[in-house]
């Protein structure tokens, strides 16, 4: 089932006309009629007014206005609390990229967002709308923790095994949704959404029961349920550590995967099949694409990447599994991918901005503003980022419908 996401490319919907060309075929293929002394039937009304660059300028301008509005509302909230916008912006910038240590932490936060976003982009391109990234991330982290804590062996090997286990765990969790879709036609959105909360409870149970993962030295009843810490040799290496620039090697993994998949999506046959399956599964099937396989594979792949993100978080930053392990990284990755509007080139910058807001937001409290403002800012920015394309697309549709109606009336009157 292809849930249509609003795409920025204006595809022509009138048969026989390509984007930008006047609709002369319609007029020339029909026998000549007397349409009146002055007018000739062309499709000129169907073309967008103004030059081709007007569209881009309009879009960019609207983006600027929307982002400014989002920032403006945030600053109003700051003023309502008695803070100063300037100090809040300063805290955000300095807390996220102002020092090498901060930059390292921001990059550390970019890793899971980027991986999850990459997976989401792949799945959405195939028409599978996966919103269970949180569950896949958590389950992947859980599987990675199982391997990292229970398997004994040389450190680097266990580390690699843990990351692979995380990937496999996330893939399996998404695989459940894929199987349900293929076998029983269960809506992918519903299945992945429900599975998220089941995964959270499974991991919650695992870190609360001694027989599975709970830390052996847990003493007080009220303390947070969590697993034991990972042994030091099963952690991702960090060149340097805070306050100097220290980022886990997970960033290399994430960037390599991003580059690999960008090339695959753009240049490989699989990438083309993926896009075909998402755009028009019926036509793709006629063309010979195994749509069920490609689409389910994309869903499983997005789960695998989310699981890898969980494993990377576990071995690179957090070093233990806890109740709130996902820490909204799943949602952030999903939103980042959808803000990118199916353009893989935007994934890295957008993920970085998400991570910047998260890291910089930790410093808001020092300026007198609660840290929750970061979440508000992120939500407003996402809304601001999705508004311009859909607004302009709506306007364009309305204009074309009106022009087509005028054209039809005129040709009927002829």
């Amino acid at each position, binding site marked *: 089932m292809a849930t249509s996401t609003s795409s920025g490319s204006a595809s022509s919907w009138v048969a026989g006309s390509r984007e930008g060309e006047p609709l002369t075929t319609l007029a020339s293929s029909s026998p000549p009629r007397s349409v009146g002394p002055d007018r000739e039937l062309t499709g000129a009304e169907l073309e967008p007014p103004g030059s081709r660059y007007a569209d881009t300028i309009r879009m960019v301008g609207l983006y600027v206005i929307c982002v400014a509005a989002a920032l403006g509302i945030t600053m109003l909230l700051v003023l309502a609390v008695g803070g100063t916008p300037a100090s809040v912006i300063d805290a955000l910038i300095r807390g996220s990229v102002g020092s090498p240590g901060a930059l390292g932490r921001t990059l550390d936060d970019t890793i899971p967002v980027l991986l999850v976003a990459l997976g989401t982009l792949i799945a959405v391109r195939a028409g599978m709308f996966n919103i269970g990234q949180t569950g896949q991330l958590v389950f992947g982290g859980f599987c990675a923790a199982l391997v990292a804590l229970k398997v004994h062996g040389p450190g680097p090997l266990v580390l690699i095994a843990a990351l692979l286990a995380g990937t496999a765990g996330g893939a399996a969790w998404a695989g459940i949704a894929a199987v349900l879709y293929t076998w029983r036609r269960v809506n992918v959105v519903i299945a992945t959404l429900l599975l998220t909360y089941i995964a959270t*409870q499974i991991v*919650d149970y695992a870190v609360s029961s001694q027989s599975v993962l709970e830390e052996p030295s847990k003493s007080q009843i009220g303390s947070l349920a969590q697993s034991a810490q990972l042994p030091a040799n099963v952690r991702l290496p960090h060149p340097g550590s805070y306050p100097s620039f220290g980022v886990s090697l997970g960033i290399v993994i994430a960037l390599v995967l991003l580059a690999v998949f960008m090339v695959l999506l753009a240049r490989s046959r699989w990438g083309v099949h993926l896009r075909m399956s998402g755009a028009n599964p019926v036509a793709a099937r006629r063309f010979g694409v195994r749509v069920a396989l490609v689409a389910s594979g994309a869903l499983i792949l997005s789960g695998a990447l989310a699981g890898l993100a969980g494993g990377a978080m576990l071995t690179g930053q957090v070093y233990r599994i806890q109740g709130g392990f996902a820490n909204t990284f799943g949602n952030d990755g999903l939103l980042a991918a959808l803000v990118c509007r199916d353009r893989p080139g935007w994934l890295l910058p957008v993920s970085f901005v998400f991570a910047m807001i998260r890291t910089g937001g930790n410093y808001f409290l020092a300026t007198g503003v609660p840290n929750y403002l970061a979440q508000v800012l992120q939500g407003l920015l996402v809304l601001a980022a*999705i508004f311009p394309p859909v607004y302009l*697309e709506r306007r364009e*549709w309305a204009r074309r419908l009106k022009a087509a109606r005028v054209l039809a009336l005129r040709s009927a009157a002829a």
Partner: protein
Amino acid sequence: MSFSVNASIVISGVVAESTPILFAANGEYMAERAGTLNISVEGMMLAGAFTSIAVASATTNLILGMLAGIAAGLLVAAIHANFSHRLAANTFVVGLTLDALVLGATDYFATVLKPMPAQFPPVTVPLLSKIPAIGSSIFVQPWPFYLLFLLVPAVYWAVERTNWGLQLRASGENPGAADATGIRVNVRRRQSLYLCGILSGLGGSYLSLCIVGAFNFDMTAGVGFVVIAAVIFGGWTLRGAVLGGLLFGSASAMSLVLPTLGTTVNPQFLLALPYMAALVAMVFLAKTHRAPAALAQPFTRGVS
């Protein structure tokens, strides 16, 4: 402890946990029959919970607080509806963003405003509360609880017996055909979302004003998704949604009540039960649990 005391503990717990879910499930039922898969129920309920407490403590007027909570749910619904069904944005993006936005905003304002506790006192229904074993728990509740008994038949009548409801259901099953007959599909979808916002805001206000009596950070803690699971588990019928809401409310009530009665049940299992039940229902009851055919598919006239 005696049977009637145990029974009233259990029933009070079930009523307390189920009522917010039931209010919101009525709204979500209407929204999903219209074809919108509304994920922002969580945001609507949390907004209602916070705003009702904030206004009730600021004005010391409980009814005003409840109305403010309903208005907050309606505001969230308005943003969602206009982004999703006027502008054709991706409804899941908007829903999830609104959930996070409302969470951040309520935490933000709660830190700053620090609202005082406020609570509706329970009301005793004169004769019915004397029924043994159950009367003292079901019929001694804050008065907004009794709105449920009016709400469910009203929603049934509105969706199944009015022209508006017929148009709503048509918008969910085949929006293209509905549009061809002159039904304004996106208008009905937006209206269903507004109603969902009102009822979810009411559910959230019930949670904060009637059950807890204060606002805690992330008070709803995912109950909006339990509401969605209830509607799915119920197979997109009102009877099923109410049953699902009661069942899932009971499950979370059990995780709180059973320890006081001496038995322990795995709390995570009870918390995961709604989602597992909904998934199982989707898989094994696929014939009777037919989703509205156009569920979660945006509609734009002219695009097939």
